[in-house]
């Protein structure tokens, strides 16, 4: 039995949809992935009662609420995530907390602000919350705020529910983590209430500056495993948004397979126990800055 791609979707239809996603969300679908696309999206045509992907495209662009555009994006993206992903990075994060607290105290502030961008179903945001609480550094009168942002409304719904299954872990038989932070209920693991407080989720597109409304003065941004799917201009836009949301002494973590080296004058890499953490180059605004201003803190890039 063989499957004919062109019976499912013409090349032209695929290009239309692919370019739409690329333009709106920065997501690049490389190569001819019509089958994959079809397996992820065909149910939308059924639900909407549409006959072809061409009709689907027309439907999306004539939908002024942009709901369907977001639905499409949420289906074609990879939502894979799990608790305690990339332990080495998380260790570095935990080690940075002391210094972050010091910076805040210098300013007489008792607030800690963290972003988990492209948070999918929330495992990363909650992991960070667990680590912050376990550090014991931010007790009593500290205001801890961890915000997760994603384009996928269904993933966010799951995040808010804080109820997971074994798919949200890579336990390899070690269930200590689960016992410590979750209560088991059948095949579900519900995150203990104490670890869900401080965490909020919102719907947004990382390319869109409006998604960052009221988000500023952030201490740490996690933006992992999403830039790999993006085109260059989208990455630049996202980097600007991250730059503007971080506090001057803030930290940016991206996925270990991703790199900003020689991509931006806004951030410099810093090595911490073999892990790269990005720091802001100090100049006030990311637009219209003079190259000289950047160079003052940017010299570490030269060696790359």
């Amino acid at each position, binding site marked *: 039995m063989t*499957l004919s791609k062109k019976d499912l979707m013409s090349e032209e239809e695929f290009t239309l949809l692919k370019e739409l996603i690329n333009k709106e969300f920065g997501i690049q679908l490389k190569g001819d*992935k019509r*089958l994959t696309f079809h*397996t992820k999206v065909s149910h939308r045509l059924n639900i909407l009662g549409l006959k072809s992907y061409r009709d689907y495209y027309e439907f999306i662009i004539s939908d002024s609420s942009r709901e369907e555009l977001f639905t499409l994006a949420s289906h074609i993206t*990879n939502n894979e995530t799990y608790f305690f992903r990339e332990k080495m990075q998380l260790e570095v994060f935990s080690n940075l907390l002391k210094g972050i607290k010091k910076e805040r105290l210098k300013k007489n502030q008792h607030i800690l602000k963290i972003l988990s961008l492209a948070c999918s179903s929330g495992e990363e945001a909650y992991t960070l919350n667990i680590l912050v609480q376990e550090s014991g550094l931010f007790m009593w009168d500290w205001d801890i705020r961890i915000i997760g942002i994603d384009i996928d409304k*269904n993933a966010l719904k*799951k995040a808010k529910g804080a109820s997971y299954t074994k798919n949200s872990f*890579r336990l390899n038989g070690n269930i200590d983590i689960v016992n410590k932070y979750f209560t088991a209920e059948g095949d579900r693991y519900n995150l203990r209430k104490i670890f869900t407080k401080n965490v909020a989720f919102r719907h947004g597109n990382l390319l869109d500056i409006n998604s960052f409304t009221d988000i500023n003065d952030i201490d740490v941004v996690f933006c992992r495993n999403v830039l790999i799917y993006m085109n260059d201009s989208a990455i630049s836009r996202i980097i600007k948004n991250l730059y503007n949301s971080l506090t001057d002494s803030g930290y940016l973590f991206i996925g270990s397979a991703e790199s900003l080296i020689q991509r931006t004058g806004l951030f410099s890499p810093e090595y911490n126990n073999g892990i790269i953490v990005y720091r802001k180059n100090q100049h006030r605004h990311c637009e219209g800055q003079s*190259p000289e201003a950047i160079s003052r803190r940017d*010299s570490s890039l030269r060696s790359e």
Partner: protein
Amino acid sequence: MQEIQEILNKLKDNNWWVRKNTIENLLAYPEDSYLSILEEWLRNGDDALLRNAAMEAFSTLGEKAVRSLILLLKDEDPDVRIFAANVLGDIGNAEALSSLIPALADPDVNVKIASAEALGKIGSEKAVTALAKLIGDTTWVTMAAIEAIGEIGGDNALSVLHKCLEKEEYHGMTFAAIEKAGTHHFIRHLTPFVDKETGLRELALKAIVAIADREGTKPMPSYFTSLIPLLIDLQHSARPEFKKAAFIALCWSEDMRGFQYFIEALNDEELQEYAINGLFSLGKRAVPGIIDALKKEGANRVILAKVLSMLGENSALLRFAGDDDAEVRTEVALAIGNLKTPKATEILLLLEQDAIDEVRAAAQLSLRNKKDTGKLA
């Protein structure tokens, strides 16, 4: 002039971002005002900083620098000539052809190689005959020539490459070149190499798969039948490029022995597309395995559910109505709509109350369809 000098000085900054911006600023000025200065910097072999700055500038200036670079291709310093050839290749402007072809006879080996590579990048068939003359020169030069011919492609290139296959010492590089230039008509010349138990099997297989994949002309499944043990062996190869080629061939083979590899590859963005095809090509034979896989941790359950539904295995999907993934539940809701059993209706009524809008919408649609077909009957 003063202004230009100031801008040029910034090219020596130790920060790449500053240099990058500076070059962009330069573009606003007429090239006559700065190119000769950059040429001089480039010739100044004693000052590495100046030379690097000039190289970086030339590489970014692109078209504007072509004339200068053509001149530099005749510079007395071979390093400058090599650099000029490299950048001309990167720019890819055909204007450089008539200077690069003679440079294939340069007394310096590295200039020859750089010129061959540049011609490969420019990709004009006019260069093939000149490049073919280099085959038989030193190994490095021959290698560069064959590679360039592969980059250029076309009938003439392919007949040169076909000849190269006769010589054992050229095999490795020639297969790589054929992989780029080959058309499906050429596959028959490669098949004998796959059939033989030699170290060339992998290279030939990789070339065949690359050509067929690019042209959308995959060989018949039976073409691969005798190769299945090799293809499976290569799934453990340390060379990712062989592993990938063998995987694609396995997907085209419609052979059940590939099943477990298809399932694993559903989580690999690069292989997913082939794996879906491979799974689907197995048809009903794959169904029990897919159901098993759906129950396992880490499987790509959305795609698996969809493949089941595309295979018409709607009742098999019933048991996944409680899946944690909303997309799987949506697929279930849509697929079981045409099952006439009370169980299916019962599950649809449950899914109609799901927390996720899309699942509810799918269940409602199926229930509505059920009613309509019920009425018709």
